[in-house]
């Protein structure tokens, strides 16, 4: 049993901190915030592009973490993945609640923000997952590949994508859906 106890003197892992947060430990919550806020703020800012909106989203993320930490299941995802997914979901929700975005941001700008060098080196496992996703994406037809990546990093809706590409909505949907089906088949053959 003592094996399952987090180490007491070294820096606690995000997983251990989330476990403590689930028990209502505010000190652990603050430590988790200090550890993860910048990464999650980066995600919110990427989706929302406006600092004020990203700040609001990050507050929602952390209040949510406080209330829902007990739903975190370390068997399914790393703490960082769980938190990052929640941050992106909150940011997209917020984006959808805002008036339609001004259309001056180019697709290239949205797609080009990904910069692996700017992020801390991923763990070996995360790196292999990244490589697998990248490899499966490479197998897609270029148009589908670009669309899916841009949709993900830019937070664009189907209609926004269609407007930007000056393509029929039905075609854009078709390209994305085909891409998703192919992607899934490649990631989980």
């Amino acid at each position: 049993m003592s094996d399952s106890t987090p180490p007491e003197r070294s820096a606690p892992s995000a997983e251990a901190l989330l476990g403590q947060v689930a028990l209502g430990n505010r000190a652990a919550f603050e430590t988790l915030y200090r550890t993860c806020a910048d990464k999650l703020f980066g995600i919110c800012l990427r989706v929302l592009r406006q600092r004020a909106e990203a700040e609001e989203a990050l507050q929602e993320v952390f209040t949510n973490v406080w209330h829902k930490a007990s739903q975190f299941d370390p068997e399914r995802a790393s703490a960082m993945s769980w938190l990052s997914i929640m941050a992106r979901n909150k940011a997209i929700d917020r984006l959808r609640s805002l008036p339609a975005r001004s259309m001056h941001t180019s697709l290239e700008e949205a797609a080009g923000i990904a910069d692996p060098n700017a992020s801390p080196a991923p763990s070996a496992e995360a790196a292999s997952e990244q490589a697998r996703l990248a490899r499966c994406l490479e197998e897609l037809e270029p148009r589908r590949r670009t669309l899916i990546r841009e949709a993900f990093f830019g937070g664009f809706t189907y209609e926004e994508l269609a407007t930007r590409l000056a393509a029929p909505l039905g075609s854009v949907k078709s390209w994305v859906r085909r891409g998703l089906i192919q992607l899934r088949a490649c990631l989980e053959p």
Partner: protein
Amino acid sequence: MSSVPPSPPGDDTVGTEPPDDEVLAGELVLGVLERDARTQAQARSETDPVFAARVARWELRFAPWLAEIAPAAAPALLWDQICRRLGWRIEPAPRAGLWQSLILWRTVAAVAALAAMMLWWTRGPGPIVPPSSSVPPGAAEPAAKPVSTLARGDGSTAWLASVDPARGTVLMVPVPGPADALGRVPELWIIPSGQQPRSLGAVSINKSHTVAVPAGARDALVPGSVLAITLEPASGLPHAAPSGPVIAKGPVTI
């Protein structure tokens, strides 16, 4: 997972038919749905576990991309705003460093609990109602007893324990905290060095009480043993073996 047939060679009809659940879940996660469609899909994943599982799998498939996104410095004041949203009191700035320290107030609480415990030991028990298996202490009890600290993972004190090997009892004094959100209860274990944990039953999160150690476990009340508390289902106590997370532990001091 296998409900999606292998994709037929490229056609553009996929865009006009309503997507199947697997694709809809992917669209939700990718973020391409318009607001109303997104809200509908989210509502569905609240009530439809199969759909929710599809969504969760898509989230994990795309998670590697989130790892690529560079951090950005969050504004310094954001932490205070989060505390405010949670309804937590924020002390004035000059003394905030000290007074916001949980370690500090936990220590204060622990010292207060210890003082209360010493009173209890010297004056005898008040009319407390322990949740389970208590033993009223006799009159011929020595006043001074060593105290074992059961600490959380972050080092803060969660319980104080005073072990009486002669009488086979452990007095447990909690630093009061919130109940488990999942309804689990704290269960106390004694772990003799190199052996399996043995349950001493449930303990309270906000009241001090004495736990009677079963005859078979009294030989474990020695230095070198460890007291640990895990969160366990409220039914079936005491359990044969722990199944939940360890929330506090500390060495037995005699």
